[in-house]
């Protein structure tokens, strides 16, 4: 149960919310507030799961997904995109860029961890 999760998210409140939920469920959480830091941490720490926000200051979530997939990291790393409703076609684009799945914003605190685990196990 002590899998490591990397969260790439620029919004401090969202980052806090996600890490709070995950640490409450006994996960190890590492944090990156932009795309470059996220990629560096992914290469250094080899997390089992990476949660990526779609809108980041330096690059978008799709670019992070495709860079992660071409960086030589193990393919077993699960990449999950956290995206908002109403942005039509975002989810399909994320899957094409190499993401394993997506979770919609606003996240539901009751189901968020379960949603993430079901993508991780698939």
């Amino acid at each position, binding site marked *: 149960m002590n899998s490591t999760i990397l969260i790439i998210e620029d919004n401090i409140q969202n980052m806090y919310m996600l890490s709070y939920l995950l640490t409450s469920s006994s996960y190890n959480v590492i944090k990156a507030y932009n795309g470059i830091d996220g990629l560096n941490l992914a290469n250094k720490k080899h997390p089992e799961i990476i949660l990526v926000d779609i809108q980041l200051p330096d690059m978008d979530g799709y670019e992070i997904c495709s860079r992660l997939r071409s960086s030589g990291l193990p393919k077993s790393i699960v990449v999950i995109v956290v995206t908002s409703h109403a942005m039509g076609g975002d989810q399909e684009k994320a899957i094409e860029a190499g993401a394993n799945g997506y979770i919609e914003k606003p996240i539901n*605190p009751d189901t968020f961890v379960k949603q993430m685990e079901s993508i991780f196990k698939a």
Partner: protein
Amino acid sequence: MRKSISFFSLKKPLVLGFFVFLTLLFATQYVSYQEYVINNSEEKQKVNKQVGLIKEKLQSLVMDSYSATKLLEYIVEINGVPKDFNKIAAELLSRSKYFDVVELVDGNGVITHVYPLENNEVIGFNILTSAEGRSGSMATIKRKDFFIAGPVRLKQGGVGMVSRQPLFIDDEFVGFAAVVTRISTFFNELVLEDPEENRFIYQLSKVNTETGIEDFFLESDISPYKDYAIPIEMSIGEWKLYVVPLQKPFNTAIWSSIIGVLLAFVSSWIVWYFAGRSARLNNLISSKLSEQEKQLKLVYEITSEKVKKSEALFRSLASNAQVAIFSADKEGMVNYVNDEWMKYSGMSFKEAMGSGWINALHPEDKDRVIHVWQQAVLYGSDFNLELKFLDKKGNTTWLIVKGTKLIDAQNNIYGYIGTASDITERIHSEKELLSYKNNLEKLVGLRTEELNDSKEALLNLLEDINLQSTELEKEKVKAQSADLMKSAFLATMSHELRTPMNSIIGFTGILLKELAGPLNSEQKKQLSMVKDSGSHLLGLINDVLDISKIEAGKLRVSFYPFNYLETLEKTIDFLMPQASKKGLELRTEISNLDITLVSDERRIEQILLNILSNAIKFSEKGDVRIKVNVKDDVLITQIIDQGIGIDKKDIDKLFIPFIQLQGGLNRKHEGTGLGLAISKNLIEKLGGTIEVESELEKGSTFIIKFPLKYS
């Protein structure tokens, strides 16, 4: 190089045959020669064996003669001439079958005793005086030893060997003791002993050591067989024995030799025949081929003759025709024009060849004609067109041209043949007609002008009105741009609004989960209210974002195939708690087991959620039915409720943004009033339609139709 030439020449059947002949001939003849040598040596062995036998017999004869005469000598030396000579002689004769006569000779050389007497009347004959016996006898006396004289012509006839033992008493010669052997007796015996097939000719001779003259014992003529002589060393001089096979045996090696020659000949012939066969077959084939070639040439000559004739026929027909005729390859290079063509164009035959004909075209027509031609070649079609020729003198000829494609056996176009007819006259008459028509029109024009004057007054009035409407148009454009700005503003604002909403909803949710510590019931109730309000506000923001995107034309949809029934089921499951809270039943009537829709799944879900939640929202009793069926590749979904219904006059307003029917309903029914407008826009964006049938207080039916595959 040399080697390869000789190897190559071996491939010629005759050379190969000869080579085989020589090789086999040499081999067989060599074997035959060896056989011949072996056969010959066998023959020699046989002769040698016979010679050995004779030698042995002769030697034993000499021994017998010696012992017999010695015995007689002994008797005479002891007792003198015996009284019973005949008895003793008979005894001696019985010692050897080759003894013929026993004799006693006195000291003077006169024969005194002979046994047997019959046929031997030699008593009283002096051997010392006779020419034949003298030398041998004297030599015997001198040597005082046994001596075999011979061959001796016997007084009694025949040739014989006389063995003499000189007799001495007190060293004084007193006579001879002699034994005579007829040679014929000896050899006759041999002949009788030989088996029939093994007969020999014999000859025995004694060589005079001083003169070298040979005295022959037998009468056999052996002059051709001098080489067969076998010397026999005797104590009494050199003798020669001839043993000549009576019949020279046939040497079977000759057969081998002949068979060898035949074999060599036959084998080399077979080799020559088979080696030469393929060459002969080749010759046969090439002769047949050349024959066929000749026939083909003949056929070709006949055919080309016919072609020439038909070509000549074509030329004469074409050159005399009253229409222009031309032919060209598919690149448009002309290779024939007739006289009429030259007349129309004013060009010579030579000038028209290749691409020269293009210069005959009127400059106005050039591009068009080339284009038509190229299109015809490209699509492999015939063509018809009208064009003008402009000759050097400036005369224009109008032509109607018809081009027909030429097709080879492989169905490929290899050129065009065409005709062109002069239609200048027709064009001229058409022009005349046109000028008549123009005159008429002018007349009509004059009349019309009069009418126009009155019309102008009316037009001025209209212009004034137009000016006013332009002003109105400008106002409208202004309003529209303001609308667009509003949409852009809303899009940005909605996004900015949404982010804090996520925090509000998320953290109230976390607090309600009591992860940070337990809450009392009042705190829980109030936090739930915060959360509900947050969710409602977020819904509003999302709807505003959608409608502003739709109005700004920025809404994107993406098409993927998905399972429609699964999506519908998800939506129903989501709304089930809401429905059961109001005591409503959700019923489905689905005619297909499996429906794959190519569309934007998330948008479809949004539409279904909208319509269904409306149906639940505006119903207080009964049920909500969802009917799904597919007809002609169109997916039809009907959502039927038994709710408040819609007034007929209000149905048109239903899909207009920000309008919720009957202001009074606002309190009772929460919502932005954007749901149906968004849904209708989305449905149309996805290629579908939405219709409503409704009756106030009875209920409403929303019918949504989507093509299964929309592109």
